[in-house]
């Protein structure tokens, strides 16, 4: 670090210079402090989606899911299918067919889950009952909080 220069005697200009310097220093340090404080304060405010959607997601209103009906929702990076059985029970499964990974759908006429790609059929327990699929669909837990359906998978 360079050593200090001998200072001038303290007439007005030097004092003024020093005051300007201190003011500059104060302003810049306020700027530096601001550039630290701004990210920290923004960080402290939680984001709109408070939780990573990989262990559980909301799946819409329970009241709008009628019996013998289903809906597809994203769960992490893959789809999930939430089914209201004809008897009114709520079930949820992974939404990708175990044959070649197409997204499955619900068939109200057949009252079970169907894959359009190669005519694969799954019953309402997720079991593969006809067509090419080699394995059942993984089941998720489906619960209702208030009027919101929440589906979750065990880690």
């Amino acid at each position: 670090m360079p050593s200090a220069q001998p200072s001038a005697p303290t007439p007005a200009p030097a004092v003024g210079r020093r005051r300007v310097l201190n003011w500059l220093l104060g302003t810049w340090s306020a700027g530096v402090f601001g550039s630290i404080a701004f990210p920290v304060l923004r960080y402290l405010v939680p984001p709109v989606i408070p939780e990573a959607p990989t262990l559980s997601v909301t799946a819409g209103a329970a009241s709008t899911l009628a019996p013998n009906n289903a809906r597809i929702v994203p769960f992490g990076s893959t789809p999930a299918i939430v089914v209201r059985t004809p008897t009114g029970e709520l079930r949820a499964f992974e939404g990708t067919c175990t044959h070649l990974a197409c997204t499955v759908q619900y068939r109200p006429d057949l009252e079970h889950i169907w894959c359009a790609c190669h005519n694969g059929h799954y019953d309402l327990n997720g079991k593969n009952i006809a067509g090419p699929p080699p394995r059942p669909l993984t089941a998720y837990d489906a619960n209702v909080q208030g009027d919101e359906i929440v589906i979750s998978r065990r880690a």
Partner: protein
Amino acid sequence: MKRGALIVPGLLVLGVLAASIAVRAHARQPDSPAQPPAVPAPPARSTPDQAAAAFKDDVHAKAGLGCESCHGQKTSGGSYAPVARTAIAPMCATCHADASVMRKFAPQVRIDQYAQYQTSVHGRQMAKGDTRVATCSDCHHSHGIVQVRDTRSPVAPAHVAGTCAACHTDAARMSPFNRSPDVFSDWSKSVHADALLKRGDRSAPTCNTCHGSHGATPPGIDAVANVCAQCHVREAELFKASKKAAVFAEMGQSDCLTCHSNHHIVAPDQTWISLEGEAICATCHDETTPGALVIRSVRKGFDDLQQRMRDAEGVLSRAETAGMLIEDGKLAMHDATEAHVRMRVLVHAFASPPFDEVLEEGLAAADKSRAVGDDAMDELQYRRRGLAVATLLILGFLATLFVKIRQLPPS
């Protein structure tokens, strides 16, 4: 910790994306004819020793049957007489067509195999005394018969085609019946053979899936569509409801075969959809025919979607390599790929409305994916600009501090 180290995860993501698109688009061109695993062929005539050795594994042996059950008593020479070829099927049928017998061993097994066989080309020829055609033992073998689901069986799903090929690739055998000997090699180059033999997907169609096992007969030009429809339900539904169904019926043309072939079924490609050159549509259509506009529009739809998906992928992978995480982009890409699959199915409607709807969805998903990538790159720029601002402030502070230090009185 090095930026370069992000290239590997980025490439991995790209690889996974590419692989999943390939799977979805069924764009699996087999690179070489799939060879079925070797099934040892039975010797033309087994010696008694060979037969006895093979019989140890036989299901009939486990059921308590012996040599006499099929061969009858030993001859005066001390050996068993071979069963005449024309007599084999009726002999097997004495048990296998009798419910009261089969019930004792395997109540769920079917008993109509002989009845089916008699309707088949093999059965009808054999009934006329022509021994050149197949009978029970040609496919099931004679002494080491195991259940179909046993992987050693010559009629296990993976082996059926090879068993049929034993005769059906022999030009000398096939020419008297006017049958092509190329069928097996055609099928071997198909996506179905690839699925069955390379991926081990036992649901993939082999010879008996479309032709029947015992009532083996080609489906017939007007019936082949029903066979394909067993798995390709949506395509069949759409086709039947489309204008083409009536046109093809009038022309006497087979529904699926005309474009997709029956044995050499390869992964369809959007280059088929064009009015020029070698394109499949161009075999019948040109600019003047009705449907020309639809063809052009559908092709353009595919090209557009492919272009936009490629662009999106490019941006996403650049963003990922730069250290940004783009989960939402991958999700949207997943949706775009789904839409692409559905578009391929909707080609069979041969009309714009249903196809265009899904095209819109696909383009929207591709655009969303692209937007996520663009946002990530923008965010990267925003971060660097923010850094530049912060650095400027810090530099200003440092410069002022430096001056301050220099003008401090001596220590």
